[in-house]
């Protein structure tokens, strides 16, 4: 719950990482993830290096590793898939605790696991240090298509409005004896979702009218006057440079 400044993935702060302009952080996070992805999966120590770089950023930003670890659990459903690979992968196989595991499967699982985890941690670091609306501003400055920025801005605002509407509809339903524990009552929930869609659509039309009335012409106006300096870029690129060096090391050593 909460909009804009109180998101569960955001950890408010005033550290140098928090103060960097959003577009700089978006580019740095993207390049960091690219480095991780292109690293050969056998370069095991290099992945430890990436984790150290991230840990360094967390230390500067004042993010407790435990806080980060709890949010990294988002990844769990994807890990399930990775666990299956060693069991179902091709030969050659290795014996481990009485299990016959596929060697390419193990490497494949490790590849998904380590790159996925590092990617999630990088995204979480970006989210933790950047309020959602700054991310939008960053996307806008990175020349993301105007329609994408507009849609995301509206989603950011109306996700909560629609959630509140859904909550009120649910309360009204259960107040009239609806108990969706029973399968045959699922129909009412489904119809509720349908009418929520229609209501949201109608609201969308009203919002559009209100925006037109205030002179909207298809583009979000740029409202922030803060300037991004080369210094900001240099600061953000420091960890990316380390990551790039690690990636190159990975290629040279395997």
């Amino acid at each position, binding site marked *: 719950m909460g909009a804009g400044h109180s998101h569960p993935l955001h950890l408010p702060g005033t550290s140098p990482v928090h103060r960097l302009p959003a577009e700089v952080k978006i580019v740095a996070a993207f390049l960091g993830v690219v480095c991780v992805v292109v690293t050969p999966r056998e370069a095991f120590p290099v992945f430890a290096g990436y984790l150290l770089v991230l840990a360094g950023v967390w230390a500067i930003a004042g993010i407790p590793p435990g806080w980060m670890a709890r949010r990294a659990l988002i990844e769990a459903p994807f890990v399930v898939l990775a666990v299956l690979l060693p069991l179902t992968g091709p030969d050659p196989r290795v014996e481990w605790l009485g299990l016959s595991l596929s060697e390419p499967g193990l490497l494949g699982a490790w590849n998904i696991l380590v790159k996925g985890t590092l990617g999630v941690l990088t995204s979480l670091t970006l989210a933790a240090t950047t309020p959602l609306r700054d991310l939008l501003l960053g996307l806008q400055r990175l020349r993301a298509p105007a329609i994408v920025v507009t849609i995301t801005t509206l989603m950011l605002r109306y996700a909560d409005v629609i959630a509140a509407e859904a909550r009120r509809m649910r309360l009204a339903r259960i107040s009239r004896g609806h108990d969706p524990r029973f399968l045959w009552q699922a129909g009412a929930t489904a119809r509720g979702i349908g009418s929520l869609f229609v209501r949201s659509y109608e609201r969308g039309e009203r919002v559009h009218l209100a925006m037109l009335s205030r002179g*909207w012409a298809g583009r979000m106006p740029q409202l922030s006057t803060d300037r991004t300096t080369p210094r900001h870029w240099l600061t953000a690129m420091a960890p990316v440079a380390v990551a790039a060096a690690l990636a190159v090391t990975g290629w040279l050593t395997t």
Partner: protein
Amino acid sequence: MTAADAGTGPATELIGAAGPPSVHLEGVTYAYPDGHLALDGIDLTIARGERVALLGPNGAGKTTLVLHLNGILVPRRGRVAIDGLAVARDTVREVRRRVGIVFQDPDDQLFMPTVAEDVAFGPANFGVAAGELAARVDEALATVDMLEHRDRSPLHLSGGQRRRVALATVLSCRPEVLVLDEPSSNLDPVARRELAEVLLGLGTTMLMVTHDLPYALQLCPRSVVIDEGRIVADGPTRELLADADLLRRHRLELPFGFAPP
């Protein structure tokens, strides 16, 4: 912009205001795509600085009329002029700057992540530059007494505060005509009175769509009653509210225990 096509209606001459009227509608007729006639020959002139209440039952055409004032709907017949500027395809932008509409549900109006950004949205669209923009935002928020909430999310405000912010988002465009759709709906009595105090202090031309007859009496010296797309009464609010027969014919009703003073 041509001042020439602004007709001076009888109401303007009556009040004797200088210059073109703020709002001038002449024979405005509008039908929905299904053929339903929503507005049927509306003639209405509102002089500069006047505060007018637009009364009428549900489905009378009040909102349709409001959407004609800033060119969102275009009349099938007749014409609309704002402050002497005829509403047309090439003037619609300037018209929208001149006419500020505060919609009924603030959640429809407030869509930016913070209050200040929302208030800045209108003037930024109309080309107000960065430095001036901040001043406009603060001025508008100060007018509605919401300056200390400028960086909050609209979601975390009370209904009355949201309504006042919605008003500020329009005031920051410095409109010549302020249009309010049901401004007092869903407000508690204190928020309702606070909003009235803000509105009375503005001095802009105002058209207020409302079912809240005591609010109309408090804020608007003149009222227009519309029913089935036609203007059926136009006169001093006090006189219209005293005409029990007129009110009954058009499904208007004073609240229990309320008698116009």
